[in-house]
């Protein structure tokens, strides 16, 4: 069993109406690609954003390839363009 947390920020959290969810997979091994496919079925609106910006996907705070193996306890985050700092 693999349990992961998925976090959504800012506009992305608005889009799906939640800031985080937990997912359980009854498997011994799963890749980031498979997790994202699952999330796309749960929240198809995530993949229909058309505002000229990209959503970055992080695994435990780092960018990762789609074939990365996701482990129990990992955290995936959907990050819209960031806007720190001053002007």
């Amino acid at each position: 069993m693999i349990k992961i947390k998925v976090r959504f920020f800012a506009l992305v959290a608005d889009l799906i109406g939640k800031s985080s969810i937990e997912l359980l997979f009854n498997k011994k091994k799963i890749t980031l690609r498979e997790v994202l496919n699952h999330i796309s079925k749960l929240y198809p609106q995530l993949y229909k954003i058309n505002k000229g910006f990209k959503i970055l996907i992080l695994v435990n705070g780092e960018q990762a390839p789609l074939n990365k193996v996701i482990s129990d306890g990992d955290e995936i985050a959907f990050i819209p363009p960031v806007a720190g700092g001053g002007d």
Partner: protein
Amino acid sequence: MPDGKIVSGQPNINEIITNMINDSYLDGCGALVIFIGYVKGKVDGHIVNILSYDAYEPYASKKLREIAYQEARDKDIYDIKIFHMIGDLKVGDPTIYIFVTGKTREKAFETAKRVLERVKHEVPIFKLERRDDGEYWVLGDGKRVKRKKENDYT
């Protein structure tokens, strides 16, 4: 020692300045550059009431520290400290502080500018502008998207 973190209270600026100067002058430093960003009262002709900052922690603080350490590797830079505020900030409230000590003013100014640009583009920090004409997500370099109801951004 370089440092960077997300904070919800204002840092003690006088103490930081005193410590950074005292730590660095014997190493030949003579320049301290400070950048303070603060909340604008007007954007695109509209009054801003509140600017809400959120951050993906602990990764935002980790990235701020990483930027401070990387930019302080320059032989002419002695120390860098970055503090980024989160929460609901009022007009005029500081949003970010960057302190850089170095051997020359050119190097210190140049480094402070580069640190700010890196913070703006690399750190998972999010900004919601609450204005008299609605709420706007600020995405990247000044692009604004009006906040809508759930499932309505397509």
